[in-house]
């Protein structure tokens, strides 16, 4: 037994040396993300805010997304209760996924890269590496737990007790450790590292979906779910430590199983056989658009579904808006004075935010063509009858279509749930949401056009389009809170477009931005046609 783990401590130290930067970013990043939103929540909760939010959060759609709260009455829904309710599940998932990816990166991925052959040729035990990775990941998550607990307790808020803060951090850390253990098991079973990653994330996703169902129907069933042992600890309210003990038992069992499985497998192989792929190609692959559709399929589908879900989660709030307004005098006066309904105003802002996110998708599709080029995957293809025009326009058009799909998904997701949530008294129909969403489509087109221009003339600047996108997003996001001067606001392309449904549609602006975008795309083509394809480096 000792023999199997020989020199694991050396590997452990080696991992820490190799990874310390990553660990720093990980612990501080996730730590600040998990504990840093307290001031924002305080802001929301001013006046009758918590009461309004408590009502909103009773909505099954919200429970499906963030989970349940033990608070029975609005009075019990303190800052701490709300913070744990809205943040814990999500932060736990984040820790879980990061840990799972880390473990597979240091096990099967390194086996595939051939690094492990070299390590194992020294006097290193068969299972020393797995033990070292597991120890490292546990250490990272323990650090994370203390960082989160420390920051939360440091606010000195009465509802953020020391015990609750520590439990909140520990729940997230334990989620990470369980993610690592799950990944370690999958790393033994699956035929390749990508399959192990897929299976681990698949398990986490499946547990999340199952708990969404049981949280709504019968909360006690969620306690049978390993994911439930993290977010059902209810920090700041019930402070249940018991679930963490279950999680620890689960981890020990999973790690033991992983070690047993690892002891009997070959390096670089799993227990499941590698699935045989297609020996010949389907007809749908055999064209330039077929190829790029296949390459971009995953990202387009994932984003479109994400926009549907984001839209739907905002849409579910519409039913409670009137209640919220009744409980908040200042807000009510604001809306009565402006003569705009709270729903219309909210729609304008939310669609602006989601459409800015939608623009990421077409930019990613356009930039993909350059990353294919740099990775030399186009070399052989460029020596066939495929023209550069074909490559360029196929990708640019695919980006435009992806942008259309994303815009539609965000508007439909928001609109459909909003109309359902508002019920009979709905002040808007789905058409209003679609109109408001597609009103912003020229801005999506504009970002795609910038990416296309970069692709043609200076492809390494393609990534800079994301910076401008983030800048525009931030500007629009904070526009309501901070009073930017007019000229600063106008540096974001979205600011030129009126906000429907509050403001009327402006056909001239719509057409102008569309034409400018199309012109930039054509300009990008002229560059793409004449430039050197990247030499690799």
């Amino acid at each position, binding site marked *: 037994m000792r023999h199997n783990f020989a020199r694991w401590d050396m590997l452990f130290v080696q991992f820490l040396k190799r990874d310390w930067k990553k660990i720093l970013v990980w612990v501080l990043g996730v730590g600040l993300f998990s504990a840093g939103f307290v001031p924002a929540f305080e802001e929301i909760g001013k006046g009758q805010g918590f009461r309004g939010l408590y009502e909103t959060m009773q909505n099954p759609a919200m429970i499906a997304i963030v989970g349940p709260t033990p608070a029975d009455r609005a009075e019990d829904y303190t800052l701490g209760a709300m913070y744990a309710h809205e943040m814990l599940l999500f932060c736990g998932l984040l820790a879980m996924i990061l840990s799972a990816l880390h473990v597979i990166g240091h096990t099967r991925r390194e086996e595939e890269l051939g690094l492990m052959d070299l390590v194992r040729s020294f006097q290193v035990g068969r299972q020393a590496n797995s033990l070292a990775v597991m120890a490292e990941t546990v250490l990272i998550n323990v650090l994370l737990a203390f960082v989160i607990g420390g920051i939360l307790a440091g606010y000195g808020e009465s509802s953020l007790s020391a015990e609750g803060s520590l439990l909140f951090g520990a729940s997230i850390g334990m989620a990470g450790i369980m993610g690592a253990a799950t990944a370690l098991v999958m790393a033994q079973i699956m035929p390749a590292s990508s399959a192990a990653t897929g299976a681990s994330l698949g398990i986490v996703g499946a547990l999340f979906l199952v708990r969404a169902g049981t949280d709504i129907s019968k909360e006690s069933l969620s306690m049978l779910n390993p994911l439930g042992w993290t977010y059902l600890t209810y920090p700041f309210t019930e402070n249940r430590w018991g679930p963490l003990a279950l999680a620890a038992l689960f981890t020990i069992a999973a790690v033991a199983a992983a070690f047993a499985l690892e002891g009997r497998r070959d390096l670089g192989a799993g227990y499941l056989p590698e699935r045989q792929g297609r020996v010949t190609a389907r007809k749908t*692959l055999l064209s330039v658009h077929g190829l790029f559709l296949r390459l971009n399929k995953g990202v387009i589908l994932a984003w479109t579904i994400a926009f549907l879900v984001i839209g739907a989660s905002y849409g579910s709030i519409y039913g409670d808006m009137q209640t919220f307004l009744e409980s908040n005098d200042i807000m009510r006066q604001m809306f009565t004075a402006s003569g705009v309904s709270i729903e219309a105003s909210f729609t304008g802002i939310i669609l602006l935010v989601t459409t800015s996110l939608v623009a990421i998708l077409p930019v990613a599709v356009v930039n993909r063509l350059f990353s294919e080029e740099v990775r030399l995957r186009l070399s*052989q293809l460029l020596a066939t009858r495929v023209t550069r025009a074909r490559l360029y326009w196929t990708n640019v058009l695919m980006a435009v279509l992806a942008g259309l799909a994303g815009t539609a998904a965000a508007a439909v997701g928001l609109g459909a749930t909003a109309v359902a949530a508002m019920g009979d008294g709905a002040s808007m129909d789905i058409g209003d949401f679609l109109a408001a969403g597609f009103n912003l489509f020229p801005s999506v087109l504009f970002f795609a056009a910038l990416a296309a221009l970069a692709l043609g003339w200076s492809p390494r600047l393609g990534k800079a389009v994301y910076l401008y996108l983030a800048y525009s997003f931030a500007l629009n996001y904070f526009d309501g809170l901070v009073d930017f001067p007019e000229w600063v606001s106008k540096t974001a392309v979205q600011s030129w477009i009126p906000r429907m449904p509050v403001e009327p549609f402006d056909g001239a602006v719509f057409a102008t931005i569309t034409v400018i975008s199309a012109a930039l795309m054509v300009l990008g083509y002229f560059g793409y046609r004449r430039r050197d394809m990247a030499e690799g480096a």
Partner: protein
Amino acid sequence: MSEVVIVRNLQKSFGRVTALHDVSLSVREGEVVGFIGPNGAGKSTTIRILLGILRRDGGEARIFGKDVWKNSLDIHRRISYVPGDVALWGNLTGGEIIDLFMKLHGGGDKAKRDFLIRRFELDPGKKAKSYSKGNRQKVALIAALSVDSDLYILDEPTSGLDPLMEAVFQDEVRKLKEAGKSVLLSSHILSEVERLADRVVIIRQGRVVESGTLDELRHLTRTTIRLAVDGDVRGLAAVRGVHDFRATGNQATFSADQEHIHHILSEAVKLGIRNIEAVPPTLEDLFMRHYEN
């Protein structure tokens, strides 16, 4: 014989770095031309200009009599290319990628594809990300050889193949030659070039330093001679055209300039030759000679 590829005084720089100073070469119909040089000498850059992937800064480059940049599409109809660094889409299988390339090239032969997959012992059902370098190269080779072309541009196509697969490759190139196809073969496996090429072009730091048939090139260099004589072998050391002379007892090894070979042998005959061996210079000798100084 008409010239399929003509390159004259080709120049190309990337920013301040000049990759090609002056490259001229030609490939005639039905001929295999070996294109050799160390890494970074400009082989792949020349080839990428021929494919219209890079724009040349100066000089002339024509394939089938057409300009490689302006008429690249017409040219691509009739050429096959295997890149030096084969990168494939990890999520597609080898079989899918071969089919895709065949379709995008046009004029593929399904039976030939299956035959080559068997010959190169490729598992076409595996995802490309699990292929080794050699297997990725097989995918590119099979795709290139399964379509009917008039010119095959192969950029170090065997650097990842094992000796058995290399033999299969050489056999396939011989078949192309018999069918009257032209091949531009860049390689640093010199024995392979020696076996296949009709003519050789040697490139160094962006300049062609030597080109011609192997025989022509051999005349420019020295033959290694080992002999044993009855007389005092050291007498040969001073003969014109003898270099690197080493003697043990009455045996000697030296290299001899081709143009003085007659004179050297006459002198040796006077000493009474008991035994003689002449080793022609290998391509490697030729190659090293250009790079050692």
